[in-house]
């Protein structure tokens, strides 16, 4: 990372932490919480969906594992909430091992279908075992913060985003990140040059699942309650993927930009369309696929690269024409 980039990232981070000193309304803080939470989720998804090119539409499983892990281990077994968050990560990692172990052997649409099916099976199991999980009624989630709740959750979300961002930067510059990109570009070629594709993809999924689980714990704890049709819903999986794809899959900044755009847009449209606000997700998906297949950041970066490359020639041509 160039010094200037690092400085900019640090400045944004510090400014983000200072926001609650200016913004006092709970409503705004909760929207900002959601923006940072989904930025972190998008960044986590991006490791698998963007860098490794494995479009997972089952990330709700890890999100739900975080929320339910906290509720079950702390609420039911009575261990400290922060320790329960770690247990939630363990559950998410176990899910990731199982899901990755089966799905990564499949390619293209079959992989996507398998991730959806796993997410749905988990949702249905949680729904149908009311003795353990509370079933449809759901479970109470212990509070992670007791004072200045909205500010505390906001700060936690900012920290989580920073963690996910730092992880992404580190991976994108490491050998591991190049392995992932090689697998995305051509898995057979990657295999032939000695990249253990299965192991590499699984490791990326484990990191991604751990971060997603942390976000799930935060989300569950803010609302103090989880129900399967909310945290384990396919809508969560879709939203996470849309955030990353909209901003630009396989770019470091993409998911953050995607979350800012998508979550603000959805907040605005929630007031107009009420329950039909997923409409905006549908429209954004179609727009992204047709007009911005690289996402906002990817398209912008490509434009800037082109201008840097051909700008000189273009300017000279103009100069010649003028003469």
């Amino acid at each position, binding site marked *: 990372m160039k010094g200037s980039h690092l400085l900019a990232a640090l400045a944004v981070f510090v400014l983000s932490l200072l926001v609650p000193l200016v913004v006092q309304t709970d409503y705004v803080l909760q929207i900002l919480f959601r923006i940072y939470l989904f930025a972190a989720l998008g960044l986590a998804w991006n490791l698998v969906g963007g860098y490794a090119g494995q479009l997972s*539409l089952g990330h709700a499983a890890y999100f739900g594992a975080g929320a339910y892990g906290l509720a079950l281990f702390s609420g039911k077994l009575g261990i400290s909430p922060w320790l329960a968050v770690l247990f939630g990560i363990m559950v998410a990692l176990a899910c990731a091992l199982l899901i990755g172990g089966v799905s990564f052997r*499949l390619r*293209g649409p079959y992989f996507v279908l398998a991730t959806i099916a796993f997410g*749905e099976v988990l949702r249905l199991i949680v729904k*149908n075992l009311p003795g353990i999980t509370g079933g449809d009624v759901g479970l109470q989630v212990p509070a992670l913060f007791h004072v200045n709740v909205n500010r505390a959750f906001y700060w936690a979300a900012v920290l989580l985003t920073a963690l996910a961002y730092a992880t992404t930067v580190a991976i994108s510059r490491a050998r591991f990140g190049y392995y992932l990109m090689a697998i995305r570009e051509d898995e057979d070629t990657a295999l032939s040059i000695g990249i253990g594709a299965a192991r590499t993809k699984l490791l990326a999924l484990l990191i991604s699942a751990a971060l997603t689980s942390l976000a799930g714990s935060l989300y569950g704890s803010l609302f103090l309650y989880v129900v399967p049709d909310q945290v384990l819903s396919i809508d969560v999986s*879709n939203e996470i993927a849309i955030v990353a*794809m909209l901003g630009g899959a396989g770019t470091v900044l993409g998911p953050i930009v995607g979350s800012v755009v998508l979550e603000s847009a959805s907040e605005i449209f929630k007031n107009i369309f009420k329950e*039909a606000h997923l*409409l905006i997700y*549908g429209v954004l998906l179609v727009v992204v696929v047709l007009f911005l297949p690289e996402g906002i950041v990817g398209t912008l970066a490509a434009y800037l690269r082109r201008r840097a490359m051909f700008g000189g020639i273009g300017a000279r041509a103009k100069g010649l024409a003028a003469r």
Partner: protein
Amino acid sequence: MDFYASLQAVINGLLTGALYALVGMGLALIFGVMRIVNFAHGAFMMLGMYATYVLFTRTDVSPYILFILAGIVLFAVGYAIYYGLLRPIHGKSDFMQILLTLGVGLICTDGILLIFGADYHQINIPLLSRDFHLGSHISVNAPWVVSFGIAVVLALALYLFVMRTMLGRAARAIAQNRYAAPLMGINVFRVQAISFAIGIAAAGIAGGLLLPVFYIYPQVGDQFTLKAFVIVVLGGMESIVGAALAGLVLGVVESLTSLYWGNEWALAVDFIIFLLVLSLKPSGIFGSQKA
């Protein structure tokens, strides 16, 4: 659980399964044969239900006639979506198709939600109060039998379309080799557009046939998208007959699961079978080995 309860469940399963088969065969044509990953399939089925519902409440004609109109409407929708949205991204990765059709599905579902609200609706036709009795233990509701009969006829027609008509042959030729097909004088886009529209129409017609026996609400199609993929994979991708059989099997499996374990496990069992087939025998239960 006695023998008659199981037999009743199998019969109910076959009746539901015929409609699953119709939805699944539509996707088998779109995904299995043409390799277009359509994540909006269930949403199109839902549109078929609402189209029939709207026509029924306006005209009071039997839904067993109106489903034809729903099929025509959905054919037009499918044709327009192919040319408007899918053709521009042809040749790009599967993921683009997945995201695009996911978006189209969300637009359909939430568009309907916006227009009709989230309420559940049900129609009432005289046929609903009629039951057929087979012996003293088995009885079936008349609308299911009528839907079953129509679904079987349409499934047969769809099979003949894919296997015997010039258009169906062309669609399969494109699936075999999309570069050689145009050299043989096949208009790839036209054939795919019509086949896609027919697949969508099949989903829409199945929706129309389900209307008398189902509650309708905007998200009713959601579970059918994944179910349709389960059917196509179970049936072995390119096999239209396989999809038909897989639809029937899925109907019976769900019905028996509901009987012995409870209704709430039916969907989970679907997906678990799906995952097992995907990981153990990706060519499907009824498919040939090559897929």
